[in-house]
């Protein structure tokens, strides 16, 4: 039979089997497992059937807790059911896992093993999550590679049906889940042969069925619970044997052989490493290398970790073994050792006790930790462990891969130990996310993998920014399956797709001697050489690199490709790498283009073809001079003026040297300084806004909408500007009585992402040329130096006095310093303008609970922090607990505020004799309703602190520790719709109902943005999202209406692009309302499929169409006898279609499923219209007789 091969990542490999062997998948998106659910949904959507000829049902739940509940229910009623998850998601499934295992229910959970949030969240891979489930009763089957992810998925499915023990099948997050490999697929008939129908029928026979009713899930008492718990033993005892038997059947049917523990290495090995997961591949590769050199080493790859079979484990080890290192990819602080280390010791101790130890002498066993959060695990590290095992007293409880200079656990290793094979072609590509480099490399892997006999591997590294993000692709091609589960260390080909990367990171450290170096350069060949930093020139010369240059953007522009240089750079790679004969390769590229873009139209195909042809004509081989000529060195990542911590720690991370930071450089409890994005000048945009002072009407709109706080406003006196640099722009204030003051609008050009939202927001047009506004995009390079100096001078100017700013005016509020700046959010982000506005209004007394999601990533991902500080060192204090608990987390803040304020008041009264009655009365009676009153209170607290400073009374000291609480705090709970509408809704509902004084900001993008566009309950009718490929059928949940039903919750629905003034009012009222407040903010998003420059227009269209009515519900008005609900938007003025069909999320359905689109449009329009008709009493003051047209929106009243 012809071998069936496929090119895929671990997620697809596992989902391939899961979808074929299940009837129901109940999931919830979480990185890095989300694609497994998405693949399943996609396959079911195109009617792919399982091995029994039926299409599996795929359901998205509101949380992993919900998903596991649904899995449990579906299993209990007899369906073959699976789920996919990771990390925190898996933790949420633990309660159901106990139930499912306790009830001996056959199922497989496929898990992309990922770190847990401890001192910090990490989306990357280790075994912390799966190992936290050891006690649930699930069997653990681990895959180490993409091929194994497919194979073990099937073995697990067969084994769970036979053993009745539920299985967790897991593989390493990202390293395996996202590594692309060429693998052998298991044909359907082989899957069919391994899954026994009689076991499926037996599973169904155990289901709840009113035809033969039973009861499961009793409550038991001390008399029988214990005995009941012990009933399962025989099933666990039998499981290793069953897995072994199925592995044998698998070998016979499929042809690949596995064991519970697979040993590789010298038969007479004396030093052995034991581990599971992807590290085992690198370890096996290293062991092969070392044994070929005569070293007596070996490695045991653990597949079945639970139930841990002592018999099979002992049998897997060579009798000659003298020392063993057990590696755990997790950390259990305070334990006697990590889990597998303890298991191995237990097995050895028990065997020795029983006299059954198969070795002459008890081996030395040490445990070590490695690879947390996808930390690289390389042959050099593996060799270091073997070297350690040679020592008479090897270090126990060691770490490898880091420098632990605090508790000295780490082993040292020699990074120059490389075992990359000459038979393997290795390539590294540096690209921008936006330029399509990763997509092109995935295509390259497909071409080589499918058109040749070569095996392929692709692994992609992304940075933590959502705008201007950099990608590094690591590709290998070789004649044998590739087991190098670590980044390419020495490449034959290095592609740098952005010239400026050469100034920021050491691109050529990856280049092997005589490698090919391809550079995308916008300069002429001569200029190109001159503009290279000296170090790069020297590397090219020293390593004797073959140097090629192309101006890919020029070719892209000429061929209609815009900024996508993917096809161009891919063509270059094939033209000069020699991986395939050039002409053949070009033909294959064109074939792939047809496949990839064919369904997007012939024009898209043709322009890509054109780009391929033009590339070949523009690719130049550069002569390399004998000596480096450049006087230009790579600049430091952060300027010398930055604080020491930023320079020495964060700067290292910024320049890709974070791996070199020792343990001592890290905070012990995950606490980091704020206000650090200001030091990370990313310079990611080639065009930036420039202010035209004479056209400007000084409205502040541009500053308001700037998602990255790059547009700043101040006023100054003429005297303030005496030292202004040449070219510093200012203009007289256009405000009565203020004409003598200067108005300044300054752009932080180095921090700008080039989104141009400011241009869209500007209402002023140049009188002579109406295409120009008061702010216009210009090329950055010519103005960079000048504007850098201008911005520095701007920062040195005094801030506007907060107490004199009218916070009801958009313009005035922009004089307030943003305390949220230069985040890593997408260019043109629709969320961050709201976040920034809140920071301007309340930042100096704000404490934020942030749900996991986009806002926690752009707000809290290292290396730098956008939450900033004012000149007094005050600013938002921020934390992220989890995704699901954010409302409760923030509620906890409010409880502290309430308690400490109360207690401070109590102590203050008790100390009245010491500090003075008047001061006490003033402090406790202060209203603090505006900036002026707050400033006065701050002044009183300063006096109070002075008075308390010398007071030795314990109560005085205690009061000092919480005295700041007497200045009004503003508690903010922020998150996206995935949190507020779905996973966190239960908590949010409870917190809103609590009556506590707190504020909730829902950044509503109507979809899970951070995890890649999955449907939430906020997703509107007709929108396409993952898990709603045919358009969402149900309506959008009306969170505002639900909250209003409590009557005592302040609720506002806002859209800055439609009505900035209303946005401003809502924030001010929410903060002022002495109870729970919730603002639901329309946030345009890249996941809407819009050109982000039109974000504000989309907000306006959403409001004008009636999809997003603006309102404020203020319970205080009720107390004043007024209607609490004020409608702030007019009756819909455009049809829904005129809004939604300007967004790809809706429009794509008209291309993919026009009938569904038409039906859902009618439904959506009806929803908007009906929502309007069922309304009344919405406006103030109510007219005596209401005409129907005026009452288009309101709650049932």
């Amino acid at each position, binding site marked *: 039979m012809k071998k069936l091969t496929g090119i895929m990542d671990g997620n697809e490999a596992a989902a391939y089997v899961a979808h074929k062997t299940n009837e129901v998948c109940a999931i919830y998106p979480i990185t890095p497992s989300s694609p497994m659910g*998405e693949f399943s949904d996609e396959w079911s959507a195109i009617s792919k059937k399982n091995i029994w000829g039926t299409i599996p049902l795929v359901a998205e739940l509101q949380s992993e807790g919900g998903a596991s509940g649904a899995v449990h229910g579906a299993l209990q009623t007899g369906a073959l059911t699976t789920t996919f998850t990771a990390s925190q998601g898996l933790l949420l499934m633990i309660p159901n896992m106990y139930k499912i295992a306790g009830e001996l229910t056959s199922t497989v959970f496929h898990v992309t093993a990922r770190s847990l949030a401890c001192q910090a969240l990490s989306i990357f891979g280790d075994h912390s999550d799966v190992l936290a489930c050891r006690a649930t009763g699930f069997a653990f089957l681990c895959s180490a590679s993409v091929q194994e992810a497919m194979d073990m998925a099937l073995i697990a499915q067969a084994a769970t049906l036979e053993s009745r023990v539920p299985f967790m099948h897991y593989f390493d997050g990202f390293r395996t889940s996202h590594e692309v490999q060429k693998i052998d697929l298991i044909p359907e008939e082989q899957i069919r042969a391994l899954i026994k129908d009689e076991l499926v029928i037996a599973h169904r026979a155990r289901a709840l069925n009113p035809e033969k009713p039973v009861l499961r899930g009793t409550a038991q008492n001390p008399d029988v619970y214990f005995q009941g718990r012990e009933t399962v033993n025989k099933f666990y005892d039998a499981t290793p044997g069953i897995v072994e038997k199925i592995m044998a059947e698998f070998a016979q049917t499929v042809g690949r052989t596995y064991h519970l523990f697979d040993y590789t290495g010298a038969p007479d090995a004396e030093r052995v490493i034991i581990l599971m997961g992807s590290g085992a591949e690198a370890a096996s590769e290293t062991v092969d290398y070392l044994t070929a050199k005569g070293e007596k080493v070996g490695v045991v790859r653990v597949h079945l970790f639970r139930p841990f079979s002592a018999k099979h484990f002992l049998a897997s080890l060579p009798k000659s073994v003298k020392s063993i290192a057990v590696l755990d990819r997790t950390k259990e602080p305070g334990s006697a050792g990590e889990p597998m280390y303890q298991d191995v010791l237990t097995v050895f101790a028990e065997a020795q006790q029983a006299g059954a130890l198969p070795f002459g002498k008890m081996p030395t066993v040490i445990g070590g930790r490695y690879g947390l959060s996808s930390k690289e695990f390389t042959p050099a590290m593996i060799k270091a462990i073997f070297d350690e095992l040679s020592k008479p007293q090897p270090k126990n409880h060691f770490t490898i891969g880091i420098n632990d200079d605090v508790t000295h656990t780490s082993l040292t290793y020699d990074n120059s130990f490389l075992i990359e094979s000459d038979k393997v072609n290795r390539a590294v590509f540096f690209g921008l*996310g936006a330029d399509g480099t990763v997509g092109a490399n995935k295509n390259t892997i497909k071409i080589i993998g499918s058109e040749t006999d070569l095996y392929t591997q692709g692994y992609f590294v992304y940075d933590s920014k959502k705008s201007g993000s950099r990608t590094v692709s690591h590709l290998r091609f070789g004649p044998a399956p590739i087991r190098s589960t670590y980044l390419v260390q020495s490449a034959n080909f290095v592609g740098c797709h952005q010239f400026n990367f050469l100034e920021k990171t050491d691109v050529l450290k990856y280049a092997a001697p005589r490698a090919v170096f391809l550079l995308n350069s916008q300069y002429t060949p001569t200029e190109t050489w001159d503009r290279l930093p000296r170090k790069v020139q020297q590397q090219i010369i020293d390593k004797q690199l073959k140097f090629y240059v192309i101006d890919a953007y020029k070719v892209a522009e000429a061929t209609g490709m815009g900024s996508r240089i993917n096809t161009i750079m891919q063509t270059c790679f094939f033209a000069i790498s020699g991986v395939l004969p050039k002409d053949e390769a070009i033909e294959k590229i064109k074939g792939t283009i047809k496949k990839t873009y064919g369904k997007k139209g012939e024009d898209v195909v043709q322009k890509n073809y054109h780009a391929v042809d033009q590339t070949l004509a523009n690719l130049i081989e550069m002569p390399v001079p004998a000596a480096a000529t450049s006087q230009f060195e790579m600049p430091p990542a952060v300027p010398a003026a930055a604080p020491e911590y930023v320079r020495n720690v964060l700067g290292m991370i910024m320049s890709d040297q974070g791996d070199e930071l020792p343990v001592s450089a890290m905070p012990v409890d995950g606490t980091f300084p704020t206000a650090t994005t200001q030091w990370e000048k990313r310079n990611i945009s080639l065009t930036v806004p420039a202010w035209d002072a004479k056209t400007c009407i000084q409205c502040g709109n541009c500053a308001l909408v700037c998602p990255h706080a790059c547009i700043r406003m101040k006023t100054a006196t003429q005297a303030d500007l005496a030292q202004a640099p040449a070219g510093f722009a200012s203009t007289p204030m256009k405000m009565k009585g203020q004409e003598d003051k200067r108005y300044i609008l300054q752009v932080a050009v180095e921090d700008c992402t080039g989104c141009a939202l400011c241009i869209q927001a500007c209402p002023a047009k140049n009188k002579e040329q109406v295409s120009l506004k008061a702010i216009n995009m210009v090329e950055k390079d010519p103005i960079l130096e000048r504007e850098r100096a201008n911005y520095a001078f701007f920062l040195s100017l005094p801030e506007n006095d907060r107490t004199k700013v009218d916070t009801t005016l958009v313009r005035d509020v922009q004089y307030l310093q943003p305390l949220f700046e230069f985040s890593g959010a997408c260019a043109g982000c629709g969320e961050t303008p709201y976040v920034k506005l809140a920071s301007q209004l309340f930042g100096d007394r704000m404490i934020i609970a942030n749900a996991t999601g986009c806002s926690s990533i752009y707000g809290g991902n290292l290396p730098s922090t956008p939450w900033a500080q004012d000149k007094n060192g005050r600013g938002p204090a921020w934390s992220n607990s989890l995704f699901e608990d954010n409302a409760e987390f923030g509620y906890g803040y409010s409880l502290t505020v309430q308690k400490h304020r109360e207690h401070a008041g109590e102590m203050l009264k008790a100390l009245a004799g010491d500090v003075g009655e008047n001061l006490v009365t003033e402090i406790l009676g202060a209203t603090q309703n505006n900036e002026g009153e707050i400033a006065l209170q701050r002044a009183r607290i300063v006096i109070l602190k002075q008075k308390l400073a010398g007071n030795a009374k314990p109560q005085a000291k205690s009061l000092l520790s919480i005295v700041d609480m007497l200045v009004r705090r503003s508690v903010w709970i922020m998150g996206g719709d995935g949190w507020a509408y779905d996973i966190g809704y239960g908590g949010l509902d409870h917190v809103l109902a609590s009556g506590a004084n707190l504020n909730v900001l829902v950044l509503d993008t109507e979809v899970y943005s951070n995890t890649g566009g999955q449907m939430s309950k906020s997703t509107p009718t007709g929108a396409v999202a993952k*898990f709603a490929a045919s358009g969402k059928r149900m309506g959008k949940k009306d969170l505002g209406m639900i909250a209003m039903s409590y009557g005592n919750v302040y609720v506002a629905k806002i859209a800055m692009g439609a009505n900035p003034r209303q946005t401003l009012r809502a924030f001010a009222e929410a903060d002022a309302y002495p109870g729970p407040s919730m603002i639901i903010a329309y946030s345009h998003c*890249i996941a809407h499929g819009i050109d982000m420059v039109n974000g504000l227009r989309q907000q306006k269209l959403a409001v004008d169409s009636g999809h997003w009515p603006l309102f404020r519900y203020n319970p205080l008005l009720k107390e004043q006898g007024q209607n609490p609900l004020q409608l702030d938007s007019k009756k819909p003025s455009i049809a829904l279609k005129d809004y939604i069909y300007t967004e790809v999320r809706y429009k794509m359905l008209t*291309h993919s499923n026009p009938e569904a689109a038409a039906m859902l449009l009618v439904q959506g329009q009806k929803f908007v219209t009906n929502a309007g008709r069922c309304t009344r009493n919405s406006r103030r003051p109510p007219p005596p007789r209401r005409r129907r047209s005026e009452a288009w929106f309101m709650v049932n009243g």
Partner: protein
Amino acid sequence: MNLKTKYMGLELKNPLVASAGPLSDSVENIQKLAAAGVSAVVMFSLFEEQLKAEANALDAQLAAGTDSFAESLSYFPPANDYKVGPEQYLELLHKASQAVDIPIIGSLNGISSAGWIEYARKMQDAGARGIELNIYYMPTDPSLSASAIEKQYIAVVAAVKAAVTIPVAVKLSPYFTSIANVARKLKRAGADALVLFNRFYQPDFDLNELAVAPTLELSHANEIRLPLRWIAILRSQMKMSLAATTGVQTSAELAKFLLAGADVVMTTSSLLHHGPAHATKLLAGLEEWMKTKEYTSVKQMKGAMSLKSVADPTAFERGNYIKIIEKYKAEYTLPV
């Protein structure tokens, strides 16, 4: 009363045809038009440029933000098939041609010669009984001469004619130096009919926003004069089908165009304004007028007032201009 007419080889039950416009955007509406009595429907125009732009925009926006950030490597589920080409148009054309027993004529606006040919062929395959080439083109390039533009028109017609077997009409703009000459060249290139004239939507200025504002106004009855004149002229010069369009609001315009020599009269504005059922009224009005004037067939009417047939042909030529000027002076100029 015999209302039958023949238009580019198609036998039609009456001379009222629904011209290219938004009413042909669904089978349901086309059925309504047929039920109201129109004798053929010209579908709304398929714009090649728009199809290309949409396909490129879809490609760009689906790719935006992908493969950039580890947690969100894509934002949309992959669709199995996107209908970004002419598929939806052709499907509608096909369904409409099955659903009604009057001819459906495809309307096409291309930008490339490949586009003109490919889409025309596909329309024929989908069931179109004729094709109307909607050559909507703003010649803003100063290096492009009038003759070069005319050559482009002729080349398009020749290419499409060579590609299809069904009749081909050309919807013309009135902005040719010599309309009659162009008409003759198009006829020689193979055009089976001319549709007079295309209405160009002229943008306006929004003084409040200082912006160019697109406008879309339905045509008025007084706009019939330009096509009326040219139909009357061309009818007397050449034997090819002529369709009149623009300004048909009542049966009066219908009658006028037929008298000038149109084989069919097209309208969208009045049907948009009053609904598809208005077609019934127009036809009834025409019959009523014919009865009054004792016409028994449309054939009898066609061209009865063409340049060749009117008592004073100068009314269509320069003489008319002089007459009007003189009349104006007489009526409106105050005696000194």
